[in-house]
């Protein structure tokens, strides 16, 4: 049953993509959305069914469904265990190339979220993209994206993961540049593609390292064998750390973390449903999924974990600061996405199971409320005739009541106001960071690990807890997490503030004003766009309460893959101090935004003037694009110009006609010998035989 569902889930979107690609332009035309909507819907139903039909027992190896075995040249015995033998010569990694699907609790959680959001976005897009010239092309690529993302999540080995990692990147590129006639859109697509290559390079290196180290890229052989990882951690910790950092580099690129976050805000040039689906809810969380999936590796590489936490924390704060001053509604949300992804990495970086579970939970809730916010922004954009600059419109509450209410729910969830979903997930992460920061107060219980009665939990904690209190940065781990906690709390405050700044600027802020582009028929969006908003806002409002700490359903389910999560989160419970602090801080943020932006006032302007340099820093996104332009792009362009010159002079001029023509020149040398004279050929054969004979005989004696 589970196997059947696992096969069906990627099949529907693939079929939808093919049908739309083949029949879209000629026959489907205005109905091109149907295959994708139906395909995603069926996938979504199957994913929900799959949630409950996988055997979700902790510690048990999941048997992947092998769809297609391309090549397998390994000894059969390697199938059951890793061949890792550090330093042993003559142990070559086997080559086992296949497409297989692995449905465990981690991937089914992702699947359920992914297919559900994808279905809603597809419905929404049928309204949003209505009348577009390339209607069918849009849906065809969306179908391809959903398929690729499903395959990414279901991958049972790193190689397949990498392939579909690239595939979703390709779809992202195609969709960002969907309106390729617009130069900005084409440039943004290019930027996303190029920046992602940097991360992918790291990821590919990581996969190679895993392959040469473990002799396999199968999850079961790499991640499923704790003995091999422990052996590696004790014999060659640097290799393990390097592997983790390489994988994390891939995550930095895909999940738009500092310093590679610059592509995501530009990616907002794509159609808004794409921003909601790919650049908020699903694809950008692939990096989080990757790191969560590789938990067994990261847990034994504390240095890499601290690095993850640090990058996550820095990104969260930096992006929140930038979001403060952005005037483009979608860009505010884009930076907010970057910031929230930073939060997830912060949770992953704590290394405690609670933090990892919290990150995954935040991933799911974030998918709902951020997709909701983006779709709400799209609804506004739709009504405003494509204008998304918040200075061009205000006071839209009366005009767009449904969008207003749903956007408010999403904003509250993002701000982390209890009891909406964002509160629960963000709080879990902050609680986990807090735990790390205060680990040394309770040395008796060995760091973050509680005294678990259960032997199994004890074992899993023995490996996770008590990391060395010295990090690779020379700062005490406890101190570092102490900073990160306050940094996270500050970010929570900023998040609440900028979210409601955007909210008030759009829906309040004085008398109604619509831009000229909207014409006179500015109106609420059609039901096909509003209904998905309501469904998503239901998720955004209730998910935290239903699945979060209060019930423990999410952690309990996920502990099928992340062993011991249920016990860990049960032990920890909810940290009410942290929860209270973050709620109060969020409330202050909302209140401040209320005061400053509810009605037009002079406060924001005066405040901005007061904080002059900082405002400019934020407005210009910390000049990071400029910095990259000066230090990376321009030098690279210079290098490119130099290379062109060099290429012209040396490579084309000397190298190509010289060295690379060497084969041709070498080929020309014996040309006179190829003279067509049969006597000569016979002589050459004779001579060659003689020379060979002479050479080998002289060696003999």
């Amino acid at each position, binding site marked *: 049953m589970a196997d059947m569902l696992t096969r069906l889930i990627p099949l529907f979107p693939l079929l939808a993509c093919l049908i739309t690609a083949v029949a879209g332009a000629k026959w489907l035309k205005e109905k091109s959305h149907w295959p994708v909507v139906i395909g995603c819907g069926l996938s979504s139903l199957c994913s929900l069914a799959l949630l409950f039909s996988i055997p979700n027992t902790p510690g048990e190896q999941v048997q992947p469904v092998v769809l297609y*075995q*391309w*090549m*397998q*040249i*390994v*000894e059969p015995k*390697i199938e059951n265990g890793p061949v890792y033998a550090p330093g042993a*010569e*003559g142990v*070559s990694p*086997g*080559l086992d190339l296949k497409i297989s699907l692995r449905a465990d609790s981690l991937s089914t959680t992702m699947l359920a979220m992914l297919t559900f959001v994808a279905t809603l976005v597809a419905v929404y897009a049928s309204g949003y993209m209505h009348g577009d010239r390339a209607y069918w092309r849009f849906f065809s690529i969306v179908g391809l994206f959903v398929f690729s993302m499903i395959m990414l999540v279901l991958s049972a080995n790193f190689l397949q993961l990498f392939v579909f990692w690239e595939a979703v990147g390709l779809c992202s590129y195609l969709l960002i540049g969907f309106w390729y006639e617009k130069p900005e859109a084409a440039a943004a697509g290019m930027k996303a593609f190029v920046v992602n290559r940097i991360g992918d390079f790291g990821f590919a290196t990581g996969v190679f390292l895993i392959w040469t180290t473990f002799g396999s890229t199968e999850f079961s052989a790499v991640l499923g064998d704790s003995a091999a990882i422990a052996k590696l951690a004790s014999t060659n910790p640097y290799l393990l750390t390097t592997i983790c950092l390489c994988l994390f580099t891939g995550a930095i690129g895909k999940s738009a973390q500092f310093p590679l976050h610059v592509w995501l805000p530009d990616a907002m040039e794509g159609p808004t449903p794409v921003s909601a689906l790919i650049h908020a809810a699903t694809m950008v969380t692939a990096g989080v999924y990757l790191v969560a999936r590789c938990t067994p590796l990261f847990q034994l590489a504390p240095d890499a974990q601290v690095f993850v936490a640090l990058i996550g924390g820095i990104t969260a704060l930096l992006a929140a600061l930038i979001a403060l001053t952005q005037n483009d509604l979608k860009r505010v949300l884009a930076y907010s996405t970057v910031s929230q992804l930073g939060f997830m990495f912060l949770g992953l970086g704590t290394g405690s199971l609670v933090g990892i579970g919290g990150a995954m939970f935040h991933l799911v809730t974030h998918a709902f409320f951020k997709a909701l916010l983006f779709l709400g922004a799209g609804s506004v954009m739709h009504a405003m005739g494509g204008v998304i600059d918040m200075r061009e419109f205000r006071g839209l509450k009366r005009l767009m009541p449904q969008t207003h209410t749903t956007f408010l729910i999403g904003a509250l969830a993002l701000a982390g106001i209890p009891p909406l979903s964002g509160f629960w997930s963000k709080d879990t992460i902050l609680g986990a960071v807090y735990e790390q920061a205060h680990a040394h107060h309770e040395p008796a219980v060995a760091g973050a690990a509680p005294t678990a009665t259960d032997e199994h939990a004890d074992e899993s904690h023995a490996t996770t807890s008590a990391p060395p209190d010295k990090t690779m940065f020379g700062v005490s781990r406890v101190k570092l997490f102490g900073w990160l906690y306050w940094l996270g709390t500050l970010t929570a405050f900023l998040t609440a503030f900028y979210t409601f700044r955007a909210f008030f600027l759009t829906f309040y802020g004085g008398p109604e004003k619509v831009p000229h582009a909207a014409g006179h028929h500015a109106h609420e969006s059609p039901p096909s766009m509003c209904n998905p908003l309501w469904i998503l806002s239901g998720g955004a409002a209730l998910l935290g309460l239903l699945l979060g700490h209060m019930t423990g359903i999410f952690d309990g389910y996920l502990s099928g893959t992340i062993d011991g999560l249920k016990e860990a989160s049960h032990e920890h419970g909810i940290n009410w101090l942290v929860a209270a602090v973050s709620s109060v801080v969020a409330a202050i943020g909302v209140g401040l935004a209320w005061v400053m932006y509810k009605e037009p006032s002079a406060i924001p302007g005066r405040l901005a003037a007061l904080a002059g340099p900082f405002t400019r820093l934020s407005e210009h996104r910390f000049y990071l694009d400029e910095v990259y332009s000066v230090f990376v792009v321009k030098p690279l362009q210079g290098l490119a110009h130099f290379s062109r010159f060099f290429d012209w002079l040396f490579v084309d001029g000397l190298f190509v006609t010289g060295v690379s023509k060497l*084969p*041709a020149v*070498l*080929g*020309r040398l*014996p*040309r006179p*010998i*190829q003279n*067509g004279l*049969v006597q*000569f*050929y*016979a002589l*050459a*054969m004779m*001579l*060659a*035989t003689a020379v*060979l*004979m002479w050479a*080998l*005989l002289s*060696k*003999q*004696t």
Partner: protein
Amino acid sequence: MSETFSILLPHVVLAVAGALFLLAGTFSINRRLFGPAAIGVLAVVGWLLYGSSLVLAEGGAIAVRSGAITQGFQYCCLALGALIILQSLSLQQEANSPTGEFYGLLLLLLDGLLLVSVANDLIMLFLSLELISIPTYVLLYLGRKDQRSQEAAVKYFLLSIFSAAMLLYGLAFIYGLTGSTQFDAIQNVLTETYAPRDPDALVPNPSILGVVALVLIFAGISFKLAAVPFHFYAPDVYEGTSAFNAGILAVVPKAAGIIALFRLVGHVTVGFEGTGQQLALILAGVTMTGGNCLALLQTNVRRMLAYSSVAHAGYMLIGFAVGFWEQSQLHSGLSANAGSLGLPGGMQASLLYLLAYSVASVGLFGALIYLGRPGRQIEHIDDLTGLAKSQPIVAIAMALFLFSMAGIPPLPGFWGKFSVFASALSVKQAVGEFGFQLHPAFAVLAVVGVLNAAIGGVYYLRLIALIFLHEPLGAPRPTGGRSAYAATLIAAVGVVLLGLVPGPVFHFLQKSAGTANQTATAATATSSELP
């Protein structure tokens, strides 16, 4: 006796059928009659082969010996032979051309190829190689009646008999050295002399005679493989003759040479492994580099493919260098390390390469036959410019063949190169007491091979670029021959399948490599027990 009979029966049937065709040629020249009949004969032979493989899974008698690899090879030969005959149905020939003789000779030639793979005796081996050569001479002569074609036929004839003489001379030396022409007997004698089980026994240096024999045998077979510097005939003959004949020359003698080496190595080379390894290393390096560099300069399609086939022979010889090394390990009682990657051994890798190369070659020449007309063959590479516009399907098929030859995954050419290079890198050298490192010569050879693959990529991709990225130069060429078209498509499907599902072939070769090694060890063990 019954073993010999069951092995030989399919070959005898094929030979008799060939002879009957020659006879029947007197009564009819109907191509539509002989072509399908020839394919039918091949099907019957395949069925007989299957029957004999049921009777005899592994083993043989005095003069012939069959086994899993041999049978696999024979099935592949029959399939490719059927494709070649299918192509020939599209050939347009003048009236009164000897059709029966044409197909009779094709069948005899295929029979020779099958016989090489079962030969277990020096004389048998030599005669079956001649059974390939002699029909080839006639086919070359029958192909076209212009002066260039005649010149090509004569050139091939003279140089071929010259090389056959060298081969025979080498085989005679082996006979002189061991007093037998039978492989097992030769192996026993050589093992006793040069590779005894007893570690304290005095092992003489391989005698001068052995080295001379090996060099001569290699010279003779190198001609069939078109290895540098025995390749001179190839470009001239390919260019001079028709696309159909060039296709036969590109596949049949090469397959015969490879399978002949496969039979010889490990049987008649015991004790000369070091020499054989050096010989194969040198020839492989020179052949790859020479073939690829010369192919870069060519503007005639068939000439370019001739040099490319030379280069492919070089890659296949890498596997034999590894094969020699594996045999030497085997005889000195060490593990051959064959399959450190779970890969088949070196010689098996070469066979895989041969399969990938043959399918692509047959397909490629089939496409050239389809695109060519009498008097308007595809000559210059510009004749293929913009083919994708006029013949999209054939263009795609050609691109598949060329990509496969260039070694682009996931096509079979990639697996061939991969396994050959991997086998070269699996050769380890003992360092100190327990340590191992890459054998430098083999590592260098693998690097040379990879560089050559890059050079090879240039001219294959240049051709693909011409086909796909350029506008056609003239009006679309008239083409014809549904059967050549069909043969090309079948080969294309074969290429795709082999590339996407390489597992069975790999597994088969790996398994049979294991069996072959066991038999070899067993044979050595028995021989050492002899007084």
